[in-house]
């Protein structure tokens, strides 16, 4: 039985705008095991991205409990949250989010720099990550010189370079054509097979089926779960 990596209990997220309460998430109970690939699906406005932001410590839940690797993380200070994100979470965004002023190598290196890793170790990890996504030959290029598919592969390399506990992907193929989308999904599959824990938001049922488990959100609530939580 794989050990539990993420545990959400009765998590809710309420936005207050001009004294009007909007419940973006309500009563979320979710457990993610190590090595699992979880897909989060649902229509626009169902709370997928909000849930992913909370899972990635980019946003805070307004209620409930949230543990990562057995440790409560809901009430961490901003500095501690940054530390957890840096060390344990890798992000893959729909729009790649590479920094235009940095080379491919530097983009991948950036989270390792924030971690305070020694230069030689950083270099080794970046090269490994770029090799893994097949982009080592473009390490000196600027993001603007790459295609969308290549940029997303670099973003994947950046996410995995630090060897995080969890990879969070928000519509990773949303800005790609089908060929590049499939290539990226193949990459994610390989990462999953190599033992990575993946949580992916997608609206594409075909890609969701690649995951080991799928949770469906509607109006901020989990309305359906399919698949097994065993990795």
């Amino acid at each position, binding site marked *: 039985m794989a050990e539990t990596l993420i545990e959400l209990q009765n998590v809710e997220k309420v936005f207050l705008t001009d004294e009007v309460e909007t419940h973006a998430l309500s009563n979320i109970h979710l457990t993610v095991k190590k090595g699992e690939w979880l897909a989060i699906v649902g229509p626009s406005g169902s709370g997928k991205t909000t849930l992913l932001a909370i899972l990635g410590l980019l946003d805070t839940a307004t209620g409930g409990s949230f543990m990562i690797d057995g440790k409560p993380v809901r009430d961490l200070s901003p500095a501690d949250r940054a530390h957890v994100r840096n060390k344990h979470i890798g992000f893959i965004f729909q729009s790649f989010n590479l920094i235009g*002023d940095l080379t491919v190598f530097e983009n991948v290196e950036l989270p390792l720099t924030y971690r305070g890793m020694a230069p030689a170790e950083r270099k080794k990890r970046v090269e490994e990550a770029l090799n893994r996504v097949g982009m080592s030959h473009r390490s000196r290029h600027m993001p603007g010189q790459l295609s969308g598919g290549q940029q997303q592969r670099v973003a994947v390399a950046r996410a995995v370079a630090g060897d995080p506990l969890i990879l969070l992907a928000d519509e990773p193929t949303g800005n790609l054509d089908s060929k590049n989308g499939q290539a990226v999904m193949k990459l994610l599959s390989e990462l999953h097979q190599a033992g990575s824990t993946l949580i992916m938001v997608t609206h594409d049922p075909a890609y969701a089926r690649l995951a080991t488990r799928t949770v469906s959100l509607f109006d901020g609530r989990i309305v359906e779960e399919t698949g097994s939580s065993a990795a």
Partner: protein
Amino acid sequence: METLLKDLRFAVRGLKRTPGFTIAAVLALALGIGATTAIFSVVHAVLLQSLGWGEESRLISVSDVYKGRGVEMGGAMSPPEVLDLRAIPLFESSGGFSSSSSALIGDRAERVKVGQVTAGFFEALGVHPLFGRTWTPDEDMKGKSNVALTSFTAFKRRFQSDPAAIGKTITLDGEWYRIIGVLPEGFSYAGPHEFFIPYSFPPEKLADWRGAHWLESVARLKRGVSIESARAALKDLASRVREQYPKYYAKEDLWDLAAQPLRDRWTGSVKQPILILFGAVLLVLLIACANVANLLLARSAAREREFALRAAIGASRTRLVRQLLTEGLAMALAGMAIGIVLAAWGLDVLLAAAPTRIRELNDVRIDRAVLAFSIVLTVVTTLVFALVPALRASDVDVATALKDGAHGTSGAPAVRLRSLLVGAQVAISLFLLAGAGLMVRSFATLLHVSPGFDPDGVVAAELLPAGPAYDDKPDARRRYFEDAVRAVSSLPGAKAVGAIDRLPASGSNYSLDYFIEGYQQAPGEPQPSGQIREAMPGYFAAMRQPMVAGREFTAADDAKAPPVAMVNEAWVRRYFPGRNVVGQRIRLDSNKRGEWRTIVGVVSDAREFGLDKPAPPVYYFAALQWPPDQMTLVARGTLSAADLRNALTPIDPTQPLDQVRPIAEILSSSLQQRRFPLQLLGAFAVLALLLSALGIYGVTSYAVAQRTREIGLRIAIGASPAQVVRLVLSGSLRVVLVGLAAGALAAVAGSRVLASQLYGISARDPLTLTAVGALLALVAVVASGVPALRAARVDPMAALKTE
């Protein structure tokens, strides 16, 4: 360090990618840092750095002070008074100094500046010769020794730095002097002097010189002695001297001895203008910082997604702030590099405009200390302009900013902050403009003051006959002066020629006590005293200083004729208001010139102490009756300085001429102390105005860009271009008006600072404040009008598609 270098590298790369932003920010910083560095180099050289004397904290200047004439006066000491100081046990050493020029006879005659000093002067200053020695008290006495010290500059230039210069002789004013020492490099006192010679006091005359005051005096306090103790000791000495020599120290004069730190003696007159300018330039730098901060706020709005991403992958807020501060530092370092080049380049221009006192006190340059200041200034500047934008930019809502389609908006707090910065810029600009405006008006008022003569078309030449052929030989001097006037009068183009011992507004003054026949002193009123001048026939005509009554001196008023005098209108107003004084007699309170002199004419007033000071009562001697040691020849006509030199040099080629220049130039020099802060403050105010205009333009442009969709919508539903312009202008000008009000309040509150620098105008002059306020408002309308007009031309279809 590796991370810092990496951050710096990224920063430089990012700045290169946005050249418009980078150029604007670096230029603003370069101007601010450069101007501050240049002014600091003056502050450092004049107010902070050693003036080349040893242990300055123990150095004091001692001076005479008279408190019994209604106003406190004082200054130079007499030789016996300077020698009296040697009796004060609290002084380690003391000495006297005066500056003159002498004819140095070599291959040709050349006029050089010579310092005459008593024994103990160099010891008091803590200055030791590089080679050789100084002189002993015994060598101060006439006939004991003809020795001289050479400055390091003269040692290099005239003796090719050869130590064998010691023992060589030079001829100054016809007398030979043996070089006994070389002064160290960089030493100067009251400006550069090529040689220093002892006084050679005639022992038999020394006692008579107690009433002749021309020496600057310095003393070095023994270790642990405070200036208060020194003042008490000087008071005791003065009291003893008054009792011992009642003939020289009339009770009603309330004569005393005063002490002040030597640095204050030399920097006192320039300290306030320099500090005002330093304050002003720091305000300009603050405006530049506000400008760059505004640019950074706009830029960070555009980079919101990047910061969110950095935060998402683990950068803490501190890390983001550090990254942004590093970017700020990269810009500031570039600004510093350009600023130092600008400062080095502008320093010569600045010094050319500076009062002579500043140039003479010290070598003003950009040295290591000034560079160190620039570096510290750059770091502080970075914190000032980059910290707030960095704190704001790093406070990013990561989840929102990373949503696909999200784009940077600075939000209401950032808009408020940017408006606040613009308001502050406007307020500081108004403050500086008000200062500059007041000084311009003050200076304009001064320029309209008549000097009491017509300076146009008059050239002056200083005549200083000296040496065995002229010293103690009044007839020889008279002949020299008469020959000089005759030689210039015979030149074609000469309309009127004369001479006087001290030109008005030249900074050279001389006053004596006198008796006036028929004048009854009121009880307690001190003896009449005032400025004395010695004029040759033709002087007043050459200067076009109109006669009011009687006649001018003529060639007939010579040594054989009855002694005559002239006075000015101020003298008449002071002693015989409304009366005809021609025929009245005056006698000097002096052994030598004690005969009665009959007033033959009254001349109108000239501004003897400069345009900003009222004309004092002046009593003129006929120079032909008692020729002074030196005179200034004045010639009206179409003559050039070269014409005068060519005519005067052959009279006695061993007597080189000095200071041959138009009178207008001399008058202009007398305004240098006022012109210097005016020019710089004016330049700073213009710079502040430009930076503020840029700031207003930048913020308005940004606001227009942010509201493009809204403006497009307004136009689509029928807003006219005028309405759009009004909409944009009203937002921008509201901030400007608040800034103007704050600036006006600050200008009124800070008016006391400038009061002492103004002439004929109130420091709270409402006209000036209104005028500069209107100017700033006009500039603000233009600066925000450009983006407002751009807004009026927004294509509604394109704007509405931008989402």
